[in-house]
């Protein structure tokens, strides 16, 4: 769907309290030449995904839930593997990096990913000299992950998903009566694809959604599809 239309659709659904709505916004680096090492199976490594599910309390605080998070982690892994398999790509997971250099790369990504979110997507956060292109890199240090996991590309993923509690829903209805729009549970996710040879971030996607329950298989599948649909691989 055209992104303008999509934005418009989302804007419209903001008017409806519990209306479900999902937007994704992908960016691809201009010089993203996807190339795989010859002789190797195409392989991607998912690097320490940061997934947290919880509920939104009546007061609006985020209340993390361990069981939901675990369920979502499993479903996301499963669906990601299936999706990549369709593209003929093997999928590995680096859940607990040991190599200190790789740990530094992962830490660096948490800062760079956040910066991309802020400066490329955030309203008013644009850097005057950086422009709108996705031209961010973690540097060739990312190579350690490439060697350790035998993968040409790394995938980073951040998901924070909150669900409306009964108390929050009650507050939302109350607010609606008073003419205010109180936000319900929201899913925020972003993912980036890194060329582990150069460290360049070749593709980035952000997802904001008020629908798609990650705790159950079918919606989780949809979320993973939304996230990786436009993966340039």
């Amino acid at each position, binding site marked *: 769907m055209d992104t303008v239309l999509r934005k418009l659709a989302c804007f419209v659904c903001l008017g409806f309290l519990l209306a479900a709505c999902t937007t994704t916004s992908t960016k691809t680096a201009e010089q993203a030449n996807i190339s795989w090492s010859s002789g190797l199976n195409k392989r991607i490594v998912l690097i320490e995904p940061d997934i*947290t599910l919880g509920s939104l309390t009546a007061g609006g*605080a985020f209340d993390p839930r361990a069981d939901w998070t675990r369920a979502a982690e499993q479903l996301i892994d499963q669906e990601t593997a299936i999706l990549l398999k369709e593209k003929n790509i093997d999928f590995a997971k680096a859940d607990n990096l040991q190599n200190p250099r790789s740990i530094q790369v992962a830490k660096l990504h*948490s800062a760079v990913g956040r910066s991309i979110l802020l400066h490329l997507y955030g309203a008013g956060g644009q850097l005057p000299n950086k422009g709108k292109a996705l031209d961010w890199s973690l540097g060739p240090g990312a190579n350690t992950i490439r060697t350790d996991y035998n993968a040409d590309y790394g995938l980073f993923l951040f998901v924070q998903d909150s669900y409306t509690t009964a108390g929050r829903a009650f507050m939302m209805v109350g607010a609606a009566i008073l003419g205010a729009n109180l936000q319900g549970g929201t899913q925020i996710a972003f993912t980036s694809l890194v060329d582990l040879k150069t460290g360049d971030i070749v593709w980035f996607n952000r997802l904001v959604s008020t629908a798609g329950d990650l705790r159950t298989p079918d919606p989780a599948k949809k979320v993973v599809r939304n996230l990786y649909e436009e993966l340039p691989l």
Partner: protein
Amino acid sequence: MLRAGFAALAYLMIPVMVFTGPVSALAAVEAIDQSPGYKPEEDTDEGGLWMMVEDAERATKRSPLLVKDEALNTYVRTLTCRLAGPHCGSIRVYVLDIPHFNAAMYPNGMMHVWTGLLVRAENEAQLAFVLGHEIGHYLERHSLERFRKAKNTSNFLAFFSLIAAGAGVGIAADLATLIALGALFSYSRDQEREADARGFDSLVQHSLDPRAGAAIWSNLIEEDDAAPRKRRSPFFSTHPSPKERFETLTARADEIASFAGETVLGTQRHREAILPHRLAWLLGELKRAAYDEHLVLAERLLQTEPRSGELLFFKGEIYRKRNEEGDLEAARAIYERAILQPDVPVEAHRSLGLTALKLKNNALARRSFETYLERRPDADDRQMIEFYLQQL
């Protein structure tokens, strides 16, 4: 900390804490003591809290601030274990190189001990008081109470917490974050009192000097009094005033004085454990540039070891870096005393040279720089010092 330890929840909690007003009803936590090896169910809010803290523990293990020295860790761990008794197996101690007085106990059994605490504790008993206090917060599950309270009082903040959570990718367990969070979180008045009582009891139980709690408080009060009003230690943002806590602990120590029996301070053991690191930690303190407070600390340490070369060096550094009216002269005098002590760090000669340079005492500068290079031929700032020598 003698405040809450919640770095993990940074991104979720900052907005909550900033806007939280006074609250009346505190969600009480049912069980008083958690049993050894306790682990909450995953589908509870406590399970969620643990999950977040476990992430923080993973970040702690990778933190560049983590002090890995085996002997030091063994010392702190052994003492913690003694105090924790049956809970020993549930508590994991991490020593972090942070120049502030603090220790923090997280709900899942992770304990942070900051080097600023180790360097300020004068003996094992004082350290034991603080550790016992922290274990008290842990056993009574105070952080869960705080967590629930914060949750129930955070009106209209969904927006803020989500933004913060969305932006807060992973956990930045850096120094600034840790300190900022420590400042944001404080346990309630009653929780601090309960934890102080626990700390005191653990001294008595283990035949450690019952006055150690009051003593460490009074040292801290003295140091904090030297701070400019606007920069008082976050440690003192906790509710029961330090003075009140000092008085309560003194009164309790008085009560039991007659039948306390033989007690120990453990000064020697503590000194042996921290001495190999002390100079580095003290110089780390200087990064805070809280010179008036550093001076109080230096004076206090010098009272017991007036001829310590490293302590004199530390004191000289404070004056040299503060660099107010007359400070350079004071620094010079102290360095000159320091270099007469057998345990003086070689860097004292360099500092004396730099001070003399500023005082335009070229002969002294030359002598000091030459001594420095003589004793440290492979100094990495050799070229710089040689350049100074040429200029003289």
